[in-house]
């Protein structure tokens, strides 16, 4: 299935986009997604400090991604 991934902060700079489209297998987990990500974007290999958000909430590696889900890569935050 096709998924859209939102990028922010330094990750958006490293990849050069504010959102990317990726193809992943149905039933993939967040953990699987992280592997696809590094495979497709090797510049992230040396930069691995980020969280993943699924539908606007922090996600665990074991959570399953479904069609129409929104994924975002959250680099270390610095609000406030």
């Amino acid at each position: 299935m096709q998924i859209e991934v939102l990028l922010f902060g330094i990750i958006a700079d490293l990849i050069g986009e504010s959102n990317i489209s990726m193809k992943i297998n149905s039933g993939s987990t967040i953990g699987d997604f992280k592997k696809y990500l590094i495979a497709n974007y090797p510049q992230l290999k040396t930069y691995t400090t980020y969280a993943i958000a699924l539908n606007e909430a922090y996600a665990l590696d074991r959570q399953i991604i479904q069609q129409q889900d929104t994924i975002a890569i959250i680099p270390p935050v610095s609000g406030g």
Partner: protein
Amino acid sequence: MNTISIRLISEPLSLQKCYEFVDDPTCGGIDIFVGTVRNHTQGKAVEKLDFSAYSPMAIKEMQLIAEKVLEKFEVFKIAIHHAEGMLQIGDIPVIIAVSAAHRVAAFEACQYAINTLKETVPIWKKEHFEDGEVWVNAHP
């Protein structure tokens, strides 16, 4: 009655609005934390800060913090307001206001809220120096 006010806006924040939101005759104390843009970091002069956010999630996370505060501390109301966009030295990126019957809860709740915001809310600041720009915290 609404006891939580969350804002993420590109206009200047208002101390007055935060105060008026949390103020109540049942409360004996209001604690307000104001974050401000300072002019230096690690010995280097800062020109301005650019705040960007994953807006819908930032609002959700600020809401979660506010709900947690009301659950954990004996406070009455809380306002968490954050600015986004380019901020100059002296501008205010964040205000946290808490009202309570007694001051200890207000102090503790306010500190908890800002400390948690800095760990969980998806907002990022980029420091602008004379010779370039750097994302804060992003370089291990």
